[in-house]
């Protein structure tokens, strides 16, 4: 069987169709196919969220570059990030990152089959474990940031005193 793209979409050319049958044009999906049901729409939100995750990754790479260029460059970039537009960017990105993470972890159960002895670990338990891991990792990062911030404050106070 071969295919050809026409103005209406893909057409399947049936080589040995039974007598009397003829292939019908198969129009492609409507451009707004993702609005046909709620799950298609959620899928598109999930896919779109990765764009924002990528944008934030670029931002982070830029931050690393500022660190490489020296303290003055880094401080200048930090000051620039305090503008409302950047704060809005981070708020929106955080929202999409959460959407991406939640939908990704909800699908964790569809990944590798985990077994305990002879028993298969249920999908929900795998997903719950993934969420627990996410929460644990987030807490760890929060702890590092808080401790790091406190150390900086202590050092600043020590230098001032």
């Amino acid at each position, binding site marked *: 069987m071969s295919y050809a793209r026409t103005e209406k979409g893909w057409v*399947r050319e*049936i080589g040995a169709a039974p007598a009397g049958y*003829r292939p*019908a044009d*198969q129009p492609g999906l409507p451009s707004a196919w993702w609005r046909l049901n709620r799950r298609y729409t959620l899928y598109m939100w999930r896919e779109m969220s990765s764009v924002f995750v990528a944008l934030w990754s670029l931002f982070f790479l830029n931050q690393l570059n500022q660190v490489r260029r020296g303290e003055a460059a880094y401080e200048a970039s930090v000051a620039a990030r305090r503008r409302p537009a950047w704060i809005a960017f981070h708020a929106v990105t955080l929202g999409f990152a959460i959407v991406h993470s939640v939908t990704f972890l909800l699908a964790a159960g569809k*990944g590798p089959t985990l077994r305990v002895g002879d028993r298969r670990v249920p*999908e929900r338990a795998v997903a719950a474990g993934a969420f627990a891991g996410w929460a644990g990792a987030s807490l760890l990062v929060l702890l590092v940031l808080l401790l790091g911030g406190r150390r900086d404050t202590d050092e600043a106070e020590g230098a001032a005193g």
Partner: protein
Amino acid sequence: MASEPTITIIAARYSPEHDAKPRTQSYTIPYREDMVVLDGLNYIKSYVDGSLTFRWSCRMGICGSCGMTVNGVPTLTCASFLRDFYPGEVVVEPLANFPLIRDLAIDMTDFMEKLKLVKPWIIREDEKPVAQGPYSQTPSQLEAYDQYSACINCMLCYAACPVYAMEPEFLGPAAIALGRRYNLDSRDQGALERLRVLATSDGIWDCTFVGECSVVCPKNVDPAKAIQQTKVDTTMNWYKNLVLPWGRR
């Protein structure tokens, strides 16, 4: 005497000899609470309009013949009760993403060709003599593939898959799930042959994990899971071969 309750079924009609494109026709038929959509179509066929064309066979969710789009959702019409729509109308259309033959009957050639590609049968490198008895399996070996063996080839997953709609070369959910079913079978030795078809850009890597195939599957086969697991397995194998090239297979 109270009048007999009725329900309206709006069926898609298409005659390649007469119609430039599909149209719809409305039928009002007697309604009973225990009727499924397929009963309604058979009533129309028997008593109202014998020209209405559709596929069906077992009437009990085994043969996979009667899949159609009911009120926008790919459904087995033998497993979809009219009472779930009553007193509203029921719109019955052919499965999406397949060429239309007539009315509600689609051409499944593409699916059958793709199914053959994954060799959905047990492949042995060394067949043992019949006298040595059957190949035995433990319950856990059976459980490894059991879910995927429930596929009845109804093609609802293809009708629900936007990737298949946009890229007809895509092997599709059911064929991949059945390929995985045999790859997980402890009696089978054909995994490598199948992976040459499954682990390609028209196979598992074409899937973007919309997941609708698993939602509409009437047998809880979960083809989306089969595809994602095959992705994970082939990726792990790739890394294993990279790190341990002497163990390459």
